[in-house]
């Protein structure tokens, strides 16, 4: 019945009216009044100018905004006062605005978009970030075209980042996913993506939508699922960003990322345990080349916080980590001048991965324990590269990726013991 469905009766009625669609653009929102109108206009411009013969629909899946976001989408005019309209739609342009059922969050919003795409048999599904770069038609179109041409089945954005930016990505998520999945995916996290209807149908069939952990894990899971199930994955250059999507505290962000990673590692162990080397992905778009400014943040304060937290949880760490690793971590001495080198950092990451596998401690608890180690590593890396040029920093990040890859066999061996 309706209560069990990803699609409310109100939404279903609108989908019945729309019928089949070739391109579905999903726009999950939550209080995005400041930016959403520009995105809607960009989508409309993309539809009318670049895909006038195709059946298109924009579906807003709103999580209960209190700032009038759905009304803004519903009522947005397709042109602003100063804009000369140069193209006219051949077909009715459909805009579906519907709140979604279930727990608020990206997971539910995406399931709604995928379910709508399934019913409408959409060939291309694009999910936009209402606060992201898709504020002009070209940036929507470039997400659609590679999928529409069947050149790729999952298109993940990639960004030109300053090496000091996106530390959680560059220190943990990117090198770990590269090493384990064997693919040079730049941005394993991210709100935007485009995919084929086939991939969307595949995802709907998977047992992920009721997982509590998936509430945070869905962006990463989508990408790793595409890799693990051998869909053709590509990357699209997007405009440079700085700390994109950072909307939570660092500690909470680390916690969510760790839960996401564990969810994916568990789901895809049969794939990544056998994956070898690192394959490059095909890229679309143009590398912006010009580096954005570096993010500035107080890494000394972060280190202090990490030092305090680590000393506090030392007894807990001793229960989870092997004695020699724990001793090395504590002997290195968390502090302003301490240096958690690549090898020790990677071994620590893999040790936590094994701890999640062993199941002696809850994953949520492990994620909380991991946060100060990450903060220490982030602080130490920033401290020791403070005077480096971006190019040298990038080399060090590349070297970190190599270390993750080099030590992977030990992780595989440990992980496989209990299989």
């Amino acid at each position, binding site marked *: *019945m*309706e209560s*069990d*469905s*990803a*699609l409310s*009766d109100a939404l*279903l*009625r609108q*989908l*019945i009216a729309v*019928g*089949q669609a070739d391109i579905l653009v999903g726009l999950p929102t939550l209080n995005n009044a400041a930016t959403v109108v520009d995105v809607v206009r960009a989508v409309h411009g993309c539809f009318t100018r670049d895909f006038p013969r195709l059946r298109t629909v924009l579906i807003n899946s709103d999580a209960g905004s209190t700032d009038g976001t759905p009304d803004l989408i519903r009522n947005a005019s397709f042109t602003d006062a100063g804009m000369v309209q140069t193209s006219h739609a051949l077909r009715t342009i459909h805009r579906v605005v519907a709140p979604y059922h279930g727990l608020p969050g990206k997971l539910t919003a995406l399931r709604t978009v995928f*379910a709508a795409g*399934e*019913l*409408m*048999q959409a060939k291309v599904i694009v999910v936009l970030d209402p606060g992201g770069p898709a504020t002009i038609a070209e940036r929507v179109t470039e997400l659609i075209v590679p999928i529409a041409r069947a050149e790729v089945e999952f298109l993940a954005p990639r960004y030109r980042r300053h090496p000091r930016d996106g530390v959680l990505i560059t220190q943990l998520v990117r090198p770990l996913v590269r090493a384990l999945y064997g693919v040079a995916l730049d941005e394993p996290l991210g709100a935007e993506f485009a995919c084929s209807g086939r991939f969307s149908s595949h995802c*709907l069939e998977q047992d992920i939508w009721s997982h509590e952990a998936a509430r945070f894990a869905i962006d990463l899971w989508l990408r790793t699922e595409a890799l693990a199930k051998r869909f053709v994955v590509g990357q699209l250059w997007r405009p440079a960003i700085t700390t994109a999507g950072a909307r939570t505290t660092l500690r909470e962000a680390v916690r969510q990322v760790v839960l996401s990673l564990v969810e994916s590692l568990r789901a895809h162990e049969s794939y990544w345990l056998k994956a070898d080397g690192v394959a490059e992905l095909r890229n679309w778009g143009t590398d912006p080349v010009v580096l954005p400014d570096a993010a500035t943040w107080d890494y000394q304060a972060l280190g202090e916080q990490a030092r305090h937290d680590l000393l506090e949880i030392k007894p807990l760490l001793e229960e989870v980590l092997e004695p020699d690793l724990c001793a090395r971590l504590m002997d290195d001495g968390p502090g302003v001048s301490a240096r958690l080198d690549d090898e020790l950092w990677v071994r620590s990451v893999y040790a936590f991965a094994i701890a999640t596998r062993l199941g002696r401690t809850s994953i949520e608890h492990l994620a909380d324990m991991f946060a100060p180690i990450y903060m220490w590593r982030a602080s130490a890396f920033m401290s020791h590269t403070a005077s480096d040029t971006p190019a040298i920093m990038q080399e060090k990040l590349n070297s970190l990726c190599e270390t993750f890859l080099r030590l992977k066999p030990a992780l595989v061996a440990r992980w496989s013991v209990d299989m």
Partner: protein
Amino acid sequence: MTTLRSADPLWYKDAVFYQLHVKSFADSNADGIGDFPGLASKLDHLASLGVDCLWLQPMYPSPFKDDGYDISDYTSIYPGYGTQQDFETFLSQAHARGLRVIIELVLNHTSDQHAWFQEARSSIDNPRRDWYVWSDTDDRYRGVRIIFIDTELSNWAWDPVSKTYYWHRFFSHQPDLNYDNPAVREEIWKVMKFWLDLGVDGFRVDAVPYLVEREGTSCENLPETHAVLKELRARLDAHFTGKVLLAEANMWPEDVCPYFGAGDEFHMSFHFPIMPRMFMALRLEDRKPLIDIIERTPSIPDSCQWGIFLRNHDELTLEMVTETERQYMWDEYAKDPRARINLGIRRRLAPLVDGDRRRIELMSGLLMSLPGSPILYYGDEIGMGDNVYLGDRNSVRTPMQWNGGINAGFSRADPERLWLPLISSAVYGYQAVNVESQEQVPTSLLNWTRRLIEVRRSTKVFGRGSIEFLKPDNHRVLAFTRTLGRDTVLVVTNLAGTAQVVELDLTRLAGAIPLEMFGGSIFPRIGREPYIMMMGPYDFYWFRLRWL
């Protein structure tokens, strides 16, 4: 290189079969008779139609007193159809397009021109004498029914050469083989292996119930016959995988079921009685005949499958109906007495339904959605007509109509040389009904049939799913679900030539969203109230039910 569409050994459960006569399909050498090079040249048509497996009618040397089912050599190709090399080339080209090929295997009898019979009759001491069933009198096996009552007076025929009687269940020129003789069984296995080694994908086995005779019985469906068939199946399984044996046994489904054994006899068998009931339900505008026969059909082993069809090379057989039903069918579908032959009707699909496109589509929709693997008869994909003025069942065996040019594109021979004349009536003539013209029209029957097969192939539910009837109050509407695992399809068919409204009780499917499978339209979610549908004349819908 073989690129078959499915590597699944149970491929036949999902397959759409296509039955054709080599001699009627395409003639490459302008002798008026279709041949293997001609057939090979038309494989693209068959591949684009979307069928999975071709069923070739007999291609063996034969005196052709029974359309080739009177075989005079089991391991050769009839010279008029080409050489063995031509056959092998055709087979490899079919496989390269993902098409499987099954051929005929006539087990019960040979032609009286076969060398085996010629040797057998030559002397009672001949080593092959015991390959056939002989008697000094014609009173053994008394009471066994005569199948071809129009032409045969007895199951025994006098052999003037050896001065004894021989047993034949079919025409007197088709002496029955003696399956009590191990040498016969061994020789038949050698025949099967010969073709399997060449790469054929199986056999349609002709007239299987009659292999063994026993005094005091009907000589049909005997345990000894099943033992012979099981022995052949066991040898097949021991040497090959992914092959299929399709039984021809024109009987009630409960009587056919033993031919599946425990999955160790035939892979498939025709479901004969369902065919006339599809036509009956259509003319009666009443679902009852169809539901009755399907509910009467026992379950079969998981690895087995029914073969269902609308029309084939024989008459629309009315053997498996009551006398009342037979008379109704004759009155409604064979008003012209020339359309009647034996206990059936010698007409093609399109003329049977007055060329009505809506009824052709409805019948094809039923064929593709009811339990079993559908078998299309060549030419029905373009709505070919028939010619009841031709003898025997040749009315439905006329040359394939490829285009509107000379000889319909079938042959470059003088029209007088064609083995059968083309259909040339104003309605069904090749100038109006042909592949080439229908290729050019997106809404043609040919393109519609392609789409129908494509939609059927989009799910395994039609080939492998269970069937549950809904039985709404309106008897003109046939509604059922097909279910396989989490996949459910709802089929609703208006058998009437008038608009109908129907209330369906879909409570057990509450929450599902119906997605119309041909056009992709979304229908309102199913709730606990009756689901009301309005249907135009002969409309049918297939809905994939989604719980999203």
